[in-house]
């Protein structure tokens, strides 16, 4: 992507012309499509979902555009302090939860309910990237390059697991590990880890996971086991997608969602709601749109100049990738139901905010690399 030419659009102020319009338009397109889906999920009404989702979308997209104006080195500077602050908030949530009794995941700050675990998804990437940025190149293949990063990952992941929120913990871990991989940690370590993962998984399954999480995995492996509980979600979601066919049942015509057979049809299972009405065509277009954003983000990483910028961009791209692919796999019965929403499609501010925060940072890095290229 070349910097927007100010010569052809002389009347447009330069900062506006410099915005990555192709990506913003793509995100706008996904957001507007989402409003249609939520409008239909509510039975043809803008309430209770489409309207509030739309307002939030505009606010967060505006926020992302503002973030894109922040200089790249600011992200580097705030990354570790921000990580520490979020970690403290996670501990705070844990303590509050213990006091209040029950798994509380958010801090009530008066104006908004903040989910620190959600903020951790991008900031674990920033923190790890910052760590490897500060590490001298000669140290990267030593043990000292590994354990601090693992600690950075394990602390928030462990706290989130305590909440308990398997999906978010997995995403934090995956984001951090991806940065470690891109930073050049020896490949054989990942191969060994990959080989021992089943053993670790088995141990975790038996000793770490909560009953309901174990149950979800067992049901994922055999949805028929629980036709009226979680298995019901998977079964109904597959029915919605499968019955949509190639072209879908048509806008406002989805019986699975409109007759309440599809649970969580506007949140985690919004993909099924969408595909019932828009069919395979809608599903494939959404995948194409999302992976266009992800590959744009990978492109940003490739073009970025500094080590921090490269690792951050690629890490955030991977965070978005995990968001999208875990949700889609889960909705289509390819992964356990772990409660990961589909960003920009599922109803709810948290995922919307995280996704646009990632995109805001990515746009900021993108802007920086262009500047350096032109200067």
């Amino acid at each position: 992507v070349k910097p927007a030419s100010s010569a052809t659009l002389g009347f447009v102020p330069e900062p506006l012309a410099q915005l990555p319009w192709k990506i913003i338009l793509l995100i706008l397109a996904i957001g507007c499509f989402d409003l249609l889906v939520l409008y239909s999920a509510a039975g043809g009404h803008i309430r209770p979902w489409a309207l509030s989702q739309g307002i939030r979308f505009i606010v967060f997209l505006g926020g992302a555009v503002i973030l894109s104006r922040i200089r790249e080195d600011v992200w580097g500077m705030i990354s570790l302090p921000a990580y520490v602050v979020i970690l403290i908030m996670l501990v705070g949530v844990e303590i509050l939860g213990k006091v209040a009794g029950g798994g509380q995941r958010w801090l009530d700050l008066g104006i908004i309910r903040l989910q620190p675990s959600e903020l951790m998804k991008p900031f674990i990437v920033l923190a790890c990237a910052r760590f490897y940025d500060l590490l001298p190149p000669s140290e990267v293949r030593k043990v000292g390059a590994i354990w601090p990063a693992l600690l950075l990952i394990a602390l928030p992941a462990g706290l989130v697991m305590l909440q308990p929120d398997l999906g978010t913990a997995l995403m934090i871990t995956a984001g951090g590990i991806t940065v470690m991989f891109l930073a050049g940690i020896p490949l054989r370590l990942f191969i060994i880890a990959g080989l021992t993962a089943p053993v670790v998984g088995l141990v975790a399954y038996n000793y770490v996971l909560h009953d309901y999480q174990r149950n979800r995995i067992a049901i994922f492996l055999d949805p028929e086991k629980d036709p009226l509980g979680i298995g019901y979600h998977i079964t109904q979601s597959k029915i919605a997608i499968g019955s949509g066919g190639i072209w879908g049942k048509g806008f406002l015509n989805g019986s699975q969602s409109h007759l309440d057979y599809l649970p969580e049809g506007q949140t985690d299972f919004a993909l099924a709601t969408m595909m019932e009405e828009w069919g395979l065509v809608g599903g494939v277009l959404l995948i194409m749109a999302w992976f266009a954003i992800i590959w744009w983000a990978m492109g940003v990483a490739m073009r970025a100049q500094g080590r921090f910028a490269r690792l951050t961009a690629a890490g955030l791209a991977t965070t978005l990738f995990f968001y999208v692919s875990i949700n889609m796999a889960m909705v289509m019965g390819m992964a356990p139901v772990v409660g990961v929403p589909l960003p920009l499609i599922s109803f709810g501010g948290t995922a919307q905010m995280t996704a646009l925060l990632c995109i805001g940072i990515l746009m900021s890095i993108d802007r920086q690399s262009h500047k350096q290229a032109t200067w």
Partner: protein
Amino acid sequence: VSRPPRPTTEAAQTYSFSRRAVMVATAQGAVALALAGRMGWLAVAENEHYKLLSESNRVNLTMIPPRRGWIVDRYGHAIANNRTDFRVDIIRDRLPATEQARVLKLLQQLLGLPPEQIVRIENDIKRAAGFQPVQVAENLTADVFAAVQVRLPELPGVAPTAGYSRNYPAAQAVAHLTGYVGAASAEQYQKTKDPLLITPGFKIGKDGLERTLESKLRGEAGAKRVEVTAHGKLVRELETRHDIPGHVQRLTIDAGLQEYAARRLGTNSGSAVVIDVTNGDVLAFVSMPAYDPNSFSDGISHLEWKMLSDNDHVPLMNKVLQGLYPPGSTVKPMNGLALLHNGVSPEDRISCSGALRVGTGIFHCHKRGGHGPLNLKQAIMASCDIYFYEMVRRLGYDRVAPIARSLGLGQKFDIPFSTQRFGTVPDSAWKRRKYKADWTVPDSLNASIGQGYVLANPLQLAVMASRIASGRALTPRLLMNGPATIANPLPIDPEHLAIIRNAMYGVVNEGGTGGRARLNIPGASLAAKTGTAQVRRITMAERGSGVLSNASLPFKLRDHALFVCFAPVENPKYAAGIVLEHGGHTVTNLDTPGIGRDIITYLLDRDKALASLAEVEPTWGGDIATRAAAETAAYKSQISALQAVQTETDATAPTDAPAVEAATDAANSSAAAIANSALPAEQGSPEQ
């Protein structure tokens, strides 16, 4: 092995990053393809499958139970039909246990159910398989039904249905003919998994014709299709497929005669069968007393069940087919045919002195002083035992038995009932087979007066009468399917038949034992033979001091009273067989000759028969419904209502159920006891 340079410098790190970023992007691309592939698999390859599932989610199919085919009589009058019925059931699977008490309380309030009904429903819910509908109430008014429907959201597991229920206008009078219907049992559902069987309001035949004609009467279910939400809320109605009613089954029965005969039997524990002599059509098939098939179909209350089981008149037993009785003197015309067939002259005389010594035993005639010398006709008219003792002693019973069989005794008939006891016509080969013993002279003597080993059911007695009347090998027919077939003539000389018919005419019209059966219709006359079957042994001592009168004996020890007849004598049209268990000839109005006369009168002059019934019916407590109500009230006063509903019983009792089998066996055991008596010397026929 070419390895990339170790990324220890910044340049090397950049190179390593690019390589690994490409790996990551490639992996992401692979995942994107996998996701798209999965979408394609679900939406294209599995599309049909999921479309079907989606449809079955969206559309709720409610079966409409088919209207059951009517059972009509030979003239098309309804014997069993359907009436519209608003009913409420509970399906336990859909009723959370925690909600049960609240739901029952609300239902009790809405439907005004008495407390013992709630106890019954609770018991039924406990015992029913979860998917089986448990009846809460039937025959509701439209208002009450609407009240339940309005409150339905508060009543989980409650299923109100507007449908049809089986109706038997003649109630008890047809109970043992039609049987009754009821909800299918859990086993029946497990066998076929037919969803119709567990549809609320659907009933299948449990006994009698309802059971044997089930496949023809059932029809095909309809289906109501509605769009519903996951929470069961109705969104809109889709097209409905109507049910196809079952086929109408036309019987040979004359519904008017059936009801008349049932009423005319009065308080007797008895049965009556009337046959059209021209073609074998069964015109009446009555066993009384009986249960009310309407209330059986509604789900019988435990009180009602207990009352029926306790009754010594065995209302649960179909006496026409399951009652086996020693036919007594009603076999004497048949014996006469056997004698003539074997060369005895109708004028050959035997002198009756009142007793006959055979070996060490003495066989008595029912007339203590004896009848003096008698020819065949006189012997039949007077029902003399000595004449038949002596004649059959000379002839041997092995030469009588073939004639008995040709008249239908011991024969099983092809009629649509699941159980049939068809009695015995004994002979020496039979006895050797069954008891490994030789036939004795006393055996012949006992058989000659229709006692001993001889057993018959009331249908066989009626068939015997119809065959004597027609001279043809008629077989009884209950279903009016196709034209009647003309039966073959019996292998019996028509002249012999004429002699016997004349003797039976004499029984009624020339001073014989059946004088009270004489018809009061100008130009028409009845021929008959009376019979009495002893159910106890009369001891020497009792005979010495005078045989006890039946009225002074307990009910179970009284003699059976039997009667066979046909009319009009000149050109027989109807034949009948009547058996009164322990009837004992105690009350004239309720005795066999009067009943036989009135049943035949109904066929020849209906108004006269109805008038005479109106006259006598009040003497035994009114018509069937009146007496049943009085009996129930009397029974209820003996037993507290709550105690009655708590008695756990199987509410469905077809005639071959163990309980009924036992009752039937008990009723028949007295006959068997006599038949197997080791001391035949004390036998006698206490004919009046």
